[in-house]
């Protein structure tokens, strides 16, 4: 009997039909709406927007639904859509000083101008399963809270407070010209910080988490403190060429993390704090912190530090941070490889034969 290992159009169609059925689950249960996903799985939506590199909560919710909750698959869907969109205009840099702040904490000062605001955090929850949620009772429905107003005075960042004393490195001067774009120019090494931050912002949360963790355990230690983490909504402004001044086109939710790191100084720079920066869409705080640690580790070369750990190595970090690339290439091993395998078989059989001949001759 000839065992056909080759599929075809009918197999693909059948697989798609089965996938659609599995996605829907038990048809006796109501179908998930995009609004439900957007509102009740909002951190999943935020992650998909951040790593999908497209701020659109409704499309991210659609991607999550279509991907059956597989967030990396959802990120891929959003990326593939994003790449088809025309680039109309580049916004002005967002000003996180004028953020409508929902959460703002500093781990370096007990109190500071603007105060500590805990906001909607899991931090001090005891991780006990809440069976009231399982009962789906809306009895203890929390009151809806309105978003805070845009602050009249910008909320100072901790890094700026340290800057007054000269204890932290100067803020990077505005680089000449526009920042690069890794989606329009292939990344080459060494990559400047603007490109590295872009790659980290799109990078996989799990990868950045593990790599930043490795720096905490001694593989390229950077002595970090979480100077500040803030989360809230910021205005996005553009300058239409025909107007010549900035107009606000909407708001996005972001989380910003500034790490300060001890630096003993060298010939080029005095002892001072140095910084690592993280910014993500939505409430992806873990990602923002991991990004800030990774950013600081990747500044090793410019700060004259020895490269001794993977997290400090640009080529290693930036070539492997993207989960759409990694997921595709790992999973391509599912594709048929029987031609290559046949070549390996042919080679192995020859080597085996020669090995046996040699052994017999030796005996």
């Amino acid at each position: 009997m000839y065992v056909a290992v080759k599929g075809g159009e009918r197999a693909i169609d059948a697989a798609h039909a089965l996938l659609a059925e599995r996605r829907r689950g038990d048809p006796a249960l109501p179908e998930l709406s995009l609004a439900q996903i957007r509102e009740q799985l909002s951190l999943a939506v935020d992650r998909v927007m951040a790593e999908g590199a497209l701020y659109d909560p409704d499309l991210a919710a659609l991607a999550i639904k279509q991907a059956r909750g597989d967030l990396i698959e959802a990120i891929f869907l959003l990326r593939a859509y994003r790449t088809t969109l025309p680039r109309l205009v580049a916004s002005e840099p967002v000003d996180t000083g004028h953020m409508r702040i929902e959460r703002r904490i500093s781990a370096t000062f007990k109190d500071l101008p603007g105060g500590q605001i805990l906001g909607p955090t899991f931090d001090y929850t005891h991780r006990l399963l809440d069976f009231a949620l399982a009962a789906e009772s809306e009895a203890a429905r929390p009151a809806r809270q309105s978003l805070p107003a845009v602050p009249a005075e910008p909320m100072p960042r901790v890094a700026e407070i340290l800057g007054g004393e000269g204890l932290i490195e100067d803020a990077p001067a505005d680089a000449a010209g526009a920042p690069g774009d890794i989606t329009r120019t292939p990344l080459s090494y060494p990559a400047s910080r603007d490109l590295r931050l872009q790659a980290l912002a799109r990078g996989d949360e799990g990868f950045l988490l593990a790599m930043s963790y490795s720096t905490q355990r001694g593989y390229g230690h950077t002595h970090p403190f979480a100077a500040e983490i803030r989360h809230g909504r910021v205005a996005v402004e553009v300058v239409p060429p025909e107007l010549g001044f900035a107009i606000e086109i909407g708001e996005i939710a972001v989380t910003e993390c500034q790490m300060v790191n001890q630096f003993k100084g060298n010939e080029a720079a005095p002892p001072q704090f140095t910084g690592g920066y993280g910014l993500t869409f939505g409430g992806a705080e873990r990602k923002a912190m991991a990004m800030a640690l990774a950013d600081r580790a990747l500044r090793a070369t410019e700060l004259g530090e020895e490269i001794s750990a993977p997290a400090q190595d640009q080529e290693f970090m930036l070539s492997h941070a993207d989960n759409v690339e990694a997921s595709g290439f790992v999973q391509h091993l599912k594709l048929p490889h029987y031609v290559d395998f046949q070549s390996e078989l042919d080679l192995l059989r020859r080597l085996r034969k020669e090995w046996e001949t040699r052994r017999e001759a030796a005996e």
Partner: protein
Amino acid sequence: MSAAHPGYNFAYLDEQTKRMIRRAILKAVAVPGYQVPFAGREMPLPYGWGTGGIQVTASIIGADDRLKVIDQGADDTTNAVSIRRFFAKTAGVATTTRTTEATIIQTRHRVPETPLQAGQIMVFQVPIPEPLRWLEPRETRSRRMHAEADYGSMYVKLYEDIARMGRITTAYDYPVMVNGRYLMRPSPIPRFDNPKLDRSPALMLFGAGREKRIYALPPHTPVKSLDFEDHPFTIERWTQHCQRCGAGDSFLDEIVIDDRGTRRFVCSDTDHCDARLERRSAS
């Protein structure tokens, strides 16, 4: 054939992107074997599944082209079906399984057995474009090695194979020297297909989507598989003939047909096999 997909541009990519890719292709053709970086786009198919080849094909295909897509030599493997459908849907172009009728052949892991003709274009899907990658994972260094034609480490690797194992142990994706200048990966084709690249009358384009590189072999480019005078390059050989068409000179797939290890050997190139059968039944 169905009309092109209404929601998307012809062959999916926007014209700006196609222009960028065509520029990279032109540069690649001008410097045979040199890997040209290009701003690869995210495609609606996964990285590692042919996104480089798809972008190259999308940038060169026209409405009057006739496309053939093969994976492992076969037109009916699932990924070949999927890519052929992608272009039938987004470009509305005619497709074929016949090597002789195709103007563009996108391939993964094989070069057809039927000799290619002038005017035909082969598009290879490339997973890892850098031939020095296993010797030097850092691109900052491997690019410099190419610039200086510093390929000694590859010869040392091949020599060490011979010293330890008695022969070169690279089974597929066997390194070639292009036009006497650039070391190149031919993509994971078997060694069997390497000689078909040498001075081929067809244009050969190589697209690596995830790694964002394009390289090319213009027609009639000398392509030499690396070897030594006393250890010449060899290709795979079988003691069997194809059990379907009887071919004795084609690359064979080995198929396990029972749990006692019985094997059956058939042509990997399905079009070649079918054409031979047709000719036999006609005569």
